[in-house]
């Protein structure tokens, strides 16, 4: 539902990278998404294509990789990827590792030609 806002942020970021890599051309952006992001990739792509038309991003491909959410121990900092929230840390036993929100949608790489 907030895919257009995400697409706008992605366009802004990608325009910066496209100018950095010139004279090479940005052809693809690889994105990591966890299932708790609440994002519909097709809607992000729709927004991205619409906003990037007539810019140097026109034709840039979005590639999606699904990753499990990361949970981080509040005590020792151990992090684990898991679909279901762990009840306790596997190292120190501290209860209720927290969900690392920062991982919900990340840029993993770009492809240039």
């Amino acid at each position, binding site marked *: 539902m*907030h895919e257009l806002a995400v697409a706008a*942020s992605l366009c802004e*970021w990608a325009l910066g990278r496209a100018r950095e890599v010139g004279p090479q051309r940005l052809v693809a952006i690889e994105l990591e998404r966890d299932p*708790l992001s*609440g994002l519909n990739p097709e809607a992000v792509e729709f927004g991205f294509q619409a906003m990037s038309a007539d810019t140097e991003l026109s034709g840039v491909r979005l590639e999606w990789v699904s990753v499990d959410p990361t949970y981080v121990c509040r005590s020792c900092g151990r992090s684990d990827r898991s679909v279901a929230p762990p009840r306790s840390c596997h190292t120190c036993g501290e209860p*209720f590792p927290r969900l690392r929100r920062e991982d919900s949608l990340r*840029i993993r790489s*770009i492809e*240039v030609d």
Partner: protein
Amino acid sequence: MARIAYKEKVLSKNDELAAEVRKRLASRGVFALNLISGPGAGKTSLVERTAAWAKGRVRAAALSGDQATENDAERIRSAGIPALQITTGSECHLNAGRVLDLLDCPELSGIRLLLIENVGNLICPAAYDLGEAAKVAVLSVAEGDDKPLKYPALFQRAELLVINKVDLLDFTDFRLERVITNAKHVAPHLGVMTLSCRTGEGLEDWYQWIDERLRQT
């Protein structure tokens, strides 16, 4: 062809702005809550009740997000605290930039408590850090008690779950023990509070929770 690796969040700009909001609120000693629920769970009623409680105790203000109208801000102002409406138009959530833009408004001058009422939506607001001290998820007994299972991200990111409209429990199939089990399943850390903004039942716990957090801020 060449591939260049990154490890960057798409919403990193929002997070930078949220960090700025958090820094400014901390420097002013403001405790900020981000209230998130679907439409109709009772966020505005909870803010109204909190506004009435805050009057004479602690200087408070509210920001209220909706797609359209000033209705909620007007209701909250009538309850006794300054309130600013954020109309989001096509957007289904508040973002940190909208909050940052309002931090220096006179209505927020000298406050200790900031209540941010997000747009009614269980999905998108959970993804946006506003610079708050805590997210509070609000459910009402007029909804399904499986909401935590269906929309886990909000409950995993919230510090507290407030279950409102408990005066209607006898008239619905909603079961408190079931929603709490479901909420703890997806978010074991989550605190749970039951109350009714209509009758006032349970509100003392809510005020006490805010009071304790204010003392820590």
